[in-house]
């Protein structure tokens, strides 16, 4: 269980993280969602005591810096290519293993686990972004942690790699462990995450199950096709629904669910050719939820310096 309370970080005049509090529970994949520049990476660095700011993050009750061998409990990937370009992949992991008194055998195990066994003796200078992500993930898995914190881990992965990552994280969380993974790719989060922490402009916008987020920020619509659309339209409006007419004659109804529309039609003897619910995508929910934050940013000409990379 991760508990972040009152995280706040300023870079000069810009407040990158503004009083962020949330919880990350074990057993599910928690997505950390927000547009670029929303403060996701800064938040993660604050959580790990890398950046100095206000607030505190507790991992099962302890601050990160209080954990004696953090790699054994929390695995992290913050940047895709945080390696010395000529230190061999295996040596990079051996170095981190030494830092947390982990057995050397783990190095080859994790390299195999992420599919880098063939380049164990390779130097990261020649690695693709995807290979860099895998090496970062290998480092995160080194201490067999119960918690993973990953910043945009899907960046640079090919479709197979993303599929693999998704399955891996689901399996990892399925075993009762904790996953906190950031992304600005909404489609990716929809497939990967069970819970969401949504931020915009450094502030918390929403937290909870993915389905709840979609429900809260969009109204489900009902698509109706009927030969008697002209009669149905005013009836729907009278019942309090908002109706929009598509060029092909179909009606888009908001404010009434499909059963209600069907019953209304039936009560007036109107035949329906199609009646379906259109659930808004996570994409739409996200755009609506973060629209305010983005507008604010576009309107205020403050220097939007990113955190030091």
């Amino acid at each position: 269980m991760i508990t972040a309370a009152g995280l706040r970080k300023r870079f000069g005049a810009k407040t990158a993280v503004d009083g962020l509090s949330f919880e990350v529970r074990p057993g599910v994949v928690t997505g950390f969602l927000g547009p670029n520049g929303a403060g996701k990476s800064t938040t993660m660095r604050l959580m790990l005591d890398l950046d100095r700011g206000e607030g505190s993050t507790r991992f099962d009750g302890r601050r990160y810096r209080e954990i004696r061998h953090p790699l054994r409990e929390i695995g992290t990937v913050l940047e895709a290519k945080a390696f010395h370009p000529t230190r061999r992949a295996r040596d990079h992991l051996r170095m981190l293993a030494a830092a947390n008194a982990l057995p050397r055998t783990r190095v080859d195990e994790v390299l195999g686990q992420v599919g880098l066994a063939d380049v164990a003796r390779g130097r990261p200078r020649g690695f693709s972004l995807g290979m860099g992500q895998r090496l970062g993930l290998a480092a995160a898995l080194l201490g067999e942690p119960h918690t993973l914190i990953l910043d945009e881990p899907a960046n640079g992965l090919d479709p197979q790699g993303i599929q693999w990552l998704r399955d891996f994280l689901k399996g990892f969380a399925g075993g009762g462990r904790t996953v906190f993974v950031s992304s600005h790719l909404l489609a990716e989060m929809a497939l990967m995450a069970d819970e969401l922490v949504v931020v915009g402009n450094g502030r918390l916008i929403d937290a909870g199950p993915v389905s709840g987020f979609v429900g809260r920020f969009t109204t489900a619509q009902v698509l109706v096709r009927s030969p008697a659309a002209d009669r149905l339209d005013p009836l729907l409006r009278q019942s309090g629904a908002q109706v929009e007419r598509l060029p092909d004659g179909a009606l888009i109804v908001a404010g009434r669910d499909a059963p209600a529309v069907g019953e209304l039609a039936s009560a007036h003897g109107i035949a329906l050719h199609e009646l379906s619910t259109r659930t808004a995508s996570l994409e739409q929910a996200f755009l609506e939820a973060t629209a305010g934050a983005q507008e604010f940013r576009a309107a205020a000409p403050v220097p939007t310096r990113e955190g030091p990379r």
Partner: protein
Amino acid sequence: MSDALRFEWVRLRTVRSTYWLLGMALLLNALIALAIGLATRSEESRAFESDGLLLTGATQFVPLPFAAVFAGIIGVLSVGHEYRHGTIRPTLTALPRRSVLIAAKLAVVAAVGALLAVASVALNWLVGLLTRGEPPSLTGGATAAALVGYVAFVALWALLGAGATLLVRNVIGVIVALLVLPLIVEPLLSALSNVPALDWLTPIVRYLPFGAGSRMVATVDVSDFGGEQLGRVASGLVFAGLVALVLVPAWVLFERRDA
């Protein structure tokens, strides 16, 4: 702490630059030993002083000795690589107690610097033996004291490199400063102090830290210099003072700054 030391030791051994830098320092010092050895093959051309110069690569007379440069750069890179390649964050997620990490880095680079000095003396001794046919004396005259000073001097340079880089987090800037100050600024001040109108510089010149550092490795008894210059131990304290002056704010800032 032992975990951090082990980390730092593996870190140092798994970059190629470490081997290049140590190798260059040993080779260049051995070449100086070769030159001195060949020049002092006849017994009458020899003094205890020449033994000391041969063993320490004439460090006393060089404003920026080879061992100091290369140990300094090893110190610079021990911190600089972490910032240049962004590994400081993975490193700190493994070792989140920052003071422990710095202490380990400083301990390892200082030890490597000291060992470099010892190894270089051993190699130069061998070169002296081969060129002259008899072993250079390690204890004659002020040689023993110069060798002790040499080991401390090279270790301090490694600490200086690491500390300065921790302070400014810019490898190029630090290397430029570590070349310009001893090679240009200090000799310039020394030269200017000889101008009558600027003779008020003279007492200051005694305390110029890099010059003081080199006097730690003086191969004659420094008290022979009279009141003009500081003695060996006092010189060592001046140079160590410079290192401390850099390290203390670097340490404090590292604790407080974003990684």
